[in-house]
């Protein structure tokens, strides 16, 4: 039973990770097609841009909610990293409670905006914007669940902070 659930979690984790990976691949290929069509065939296309921006939004919001790991997240850990485990638990309880509360309050209005955007379609692929933007609702819900979990475990005293490997830390932000 335990093994099953463990395996299930691994599969789920892989599937969650595969989404942004595939989207990034799609973005990469779309750009190559775009350059090829314009420079080599002299027949520029525009739909590639649309695929790329959609992929970009989904990579970010999916990647930072559904498939996020705590070690991937950029935090200002001057204080957080230095405090004792007990204090850290209190910190976790506080920040997760704040986040869950505000995201939950924002959920109805966000839903309202996203479903309102049904009114317009994307330019080339004619996809209704409520579908494109639905990822923001996913983002809020997944974040509420994740931080709800953090809140719960911190409250119960279970240590879920992931082992911090210095290279993992260095990996988290290649943008600088």
């Amino acid at each position: 039973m335990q093994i099953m659930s463990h395996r299930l979690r691994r599969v789920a984790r892989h599937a969650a990770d595969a989404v942004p990976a595939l989207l990034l691949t799609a973005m990469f290929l779309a750009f190559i097609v775009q350059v090829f069509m314009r420079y080599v065939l002299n027949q520029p296309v525009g739909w590639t841009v649309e695929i790329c921006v959609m992929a970009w939004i989904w990579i970010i919001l999916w990647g930072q909610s559904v498939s996020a790991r705590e070690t991937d997240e950029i935090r200002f850990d001057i204080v957080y990293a230095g405090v004792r485990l007990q204090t850290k638990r209190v910190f976790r309880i506080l920040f997760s409670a704040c986040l869950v509360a505000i995201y939950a309050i924002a959920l109805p209005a966000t839903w309202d905006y996203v479903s309102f955007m049904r009114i317009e379609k994307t330019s080339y692929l004619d996809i209704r914007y409520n579908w494109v933007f639905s990822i923001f609702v996913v983002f809020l819900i997944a974040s509420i669940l994740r931080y709800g979990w953090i809140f719960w475990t911190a409250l119960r005293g279970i240590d879920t902070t992931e082992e911090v490997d210095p290279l993992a830390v260095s990996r988290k932000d290649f943008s600088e």
Partner: protein
Amino acid sequence: QDRPVLRLSSVVSDTDIRATAFQEIADAVAEQIDLQVYNGATLVPQGSEITAIQRGNLEMGIVPPQDIANQIPEWSILTAAYVLQDVDHLKAVFDGDVGAQLNAMAEEIGLHIITPVYFGTRQVNLAPETEVMTPEDLSGVTLRMPGGDAWQFLGTAIGASPTPLAYSEVYTALQTGAIDGQDNPLPNDYNMKFYEVTSQIVLTGHLVGFDVLTIGSEVWNSMTPEQQELLQTASEEAIAKSTQAHLDREAELVQFFKDEGLKVYEPDREAFRTFAQAKYLESDFAASWPDGMLDAINALGTPSN
């Protein structure tokens, strides 16, 4: 009586002629209306002015007809090449039955149109020196057009190969030859210094560039008749001045570009016009145009030879 707060979102920069006009409107109505101008798309992301107004998060916007056409396909008639001939024609269309018809459609989605805001007529600006007289001469020419399929189709409709590209990258792309040309009103060519990296401006005049000054219908209806009257008059006056300023600027820039060593000339516009209208009429865009509207618009213009 309350002094309503109206936030106006525009994408133009603070130094633009139109920004001056917006400020003039704000000053003129100040006694009765608190009109706050946000230029540079700082208040609402570019392209979401309409939905922001519809959702009650914005009162006024400078809205491109292309964006309105996203929700009202009939509006795309004003975004097609060679439908509007010049500023006077634009004004006549909005003042007449066609304008009333289009404005009524806008009211249905919660937008009240105050007045069109002219910002220049789009001309083709090319790096290669080959002379362009007909649409056939643009065949295979990579022309940067704004993103979106309506804009891209405009490029196709004048015979070029359109490609989308961020506005801030156009200069470099012209210089390196990544694109052969771009289309914009002359003041834009000047502001972005495109004349430094191109050899000619073909005065195709394929699109009369304008936005519409728009206010949310509910906001409009909640104002007193005096306030409405005041805002309407102030807007028309300020925009009329801004329109004249744009026309003067365009005229003086033709000479400037010639002095800079560019070839500036008019092609066979009739050939372009015929080619473009044929392209549009066989496209999906024309399918959404109300019956008889094209004729009604044409009737308001100068009869074409």
